[in-house]
């Protein structure tokens, strides 16, 4: 009898887990998204592709080191003329170093990352849970649809809409809007993979709703549970 009760309890728990997931609030979902696309303590190889209006494709490869969402360092490896360029995100600041001039320049979140349609904010991902006010506007068995509204004018976007997979709590698609409600761009996520304890989309394609230009990033490999010296994320260490 006791064994049967335990079995029933286990079955009930297995059934309840999805329902428990559905009980996530909008804020909780966003908090989990915050950590999903920029996992902590990882080192990864990224490929970044810009497709211009004339059809020309420019492909960059870079090594990315992430301590947490406030400490991200990128070092460009290819193409050859970009090799040695570094981009550092520390908190709300984004810095760029170019080896040809040896100069460090502070960038803005809203500016384009590597000339493509991803902005620096898209790539380095500011903290959505503190930057935006989320709300679930619809849900189904497979997805939540969240509406995120900027808490201040300093946010990169006035509003975002995010489609989130219920089973993985990972983004599937994202729309970005300006203050007048005009759609600026769309990102479609895909190719979910696991690297150790980290599971995340390894491909994202952004389409500029105005120009039709596209950019794409891919995660080629990722090492988890990494530790980094503080100097990796120090502005003064750029170029050294």
């Amino acid at each position, binding site marked *: 009898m006791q064994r049967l009760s335990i079995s029933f309890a286990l079955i009930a728990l297995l059934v309840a887990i999805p329902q428990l997931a559905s009980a996530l609030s909008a804020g909780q979902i966003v908090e989990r998204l915050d950590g999903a696309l920029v996992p902590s303590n990882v080192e990864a190889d990224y490929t970044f592709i*810009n497709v*211009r*209006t*004339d059809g*020309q494709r*420019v492909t960059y490869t870079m090594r990315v080191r992430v301590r947490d969402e406030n400490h991200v360092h990128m070092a460009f490896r290819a*193409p050859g*003329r*970009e090799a040695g*360029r570094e981009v550092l995100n520390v908190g709300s600041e984004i810095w*760029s170093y*170019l080896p*040809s*001039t040896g*100069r460090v*320049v*502070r*960038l*803005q979140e809203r*500016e384009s990352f*590597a*000339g493509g349609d991803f902005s620096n904010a898209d790539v380095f991902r500011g903290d959505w849970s503190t930057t935006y006010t989320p709300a679930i506007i619809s849900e189904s068995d497979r997805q939540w649809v969240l509406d995120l509204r900027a808490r201040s004018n300093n946010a990169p976007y006035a509003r975002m809409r995010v489609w989130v997979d219920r089973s993985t709590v990972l983004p599937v698609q994202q729309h970005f809007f300006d203050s007048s409600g005009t759609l600026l761009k769309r990102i479609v996520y895909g190719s979910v993979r696991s690297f150790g304890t980290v599971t995340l989309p390894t491909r994202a394609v952004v389409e500029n709703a105005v*120009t039709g230009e596209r950019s794409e990033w891919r995660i080629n490999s990722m090492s988890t549970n990494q530790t980094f010296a503080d100097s990796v994320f120090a502005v003064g260490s750029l170029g050294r």
Partner: protein
Amino acid sequence: MLIRLALKNLLRNRRRSAVTISTTLVASAIVMLSVGMLNGTYREMAESFTLKMTGDVQLNRAGYRENVSGEPFGFLFEWDESLQSDVLAVEGIVAATPRLETGGLVNNQRLQKTAPMPIIGLDPDSEPKVLTRQYEAIDGAFMVMPEGADPEPNMVPILLTKDAMEGLKLGEFSQGGQSEGLEDIVITLQDQDGITQQIVGKAVGSAGHVLPDFFAAGFAGAYVPIDALQRALGVGQNVSQVMIRTETRDFFNVQPFASAVDRVLPANVEAQTWMDAAGDIAASLQSQDAINASIVFIIFVLVAMVIVNTSLMSVMERTREIGTLKALGYREGTIRNLFLVEALMIGLIGGILGGVIGQGLVWLLAEVEIKIEYTTMDSALVIVPEVDPGFAGAVALIAVISAVVAAWLPARRAARMRPVEALAAT
């Protein structure tokens, strides 16, 4: 005989004649002065465009002006030595200067303040030869590293508009001058292969002497030597635009020069006049003839109304005289023409004197700089009144015609009076 009679009649009532002639005189002088001032204003505005901003003729890739997407590399053309010499060899072309435009991030290195803005490359040697008025206040070369700047190798001089300097938290620069403690500026942009490039330089001065402040208000931009921008963008000798100065000072008739230049250009490059660049402003300036004509019309309608009134008064007062003339056998036509000749003489005397006085005033004011200050501009508009040499004659003619037309009905009324009724009038 009619003229002698008309003159005698005018002298009989000197006060009324003086008032009417004065009205015509003043109207003529006002017309001369108004049109002179308007012409001077139009010319100043046209010069502000051509000699400060656009040149007389501009060379662009076909479709450049419709390039709403701002694609920096899609509308460039090669401005090599061969094309330069071909264009400068066209008759009437005095000078040409290239520009290259793109966008980038401009960074104040000391404060690490960064702002996106247009980046414009220009040739500091040829620009003053085309935009002569814009650079006339500059003594010597501009966009140069000042002595003692101690720049690093490959650093270039950079000019910034007022709004750009405010956005980057830079100090004030005096117009055309240099500031102490020149700030390091880094411009980050993408070359035509999508590779990130930087131009490193010193902010050596305000762009106020590159772009008139009136047009620069609200525009944050950085100006760099065009060769530095061409190297950074990897575009060789390609440029966005070339501005050309011609020998003519008739700013509204530069199309022949544009057409002549167009004949030596490659197929994908076209020559357009400054009016194409100035758009609605040029269209409004071109309507100056219509505006001048409206002023002339309105003023002489008012003069005509005065002459109608005085002519009617004259007819009423001279009823018995008219009756007497008719009784003596004067025909209707003769009596009518008598009044018309009187009006003609009023118009002629007033028109000629007014034209002369008006022309004199125009010449006088032309010697004096009439400055109009705008709160949005550092430099004032300088108006030099001017009228065509034959305009005074045209004004006199219009005065005569107005007077005659105005006197027509009163003259006809006088001519149609019955002698018996006229003589019986008291």
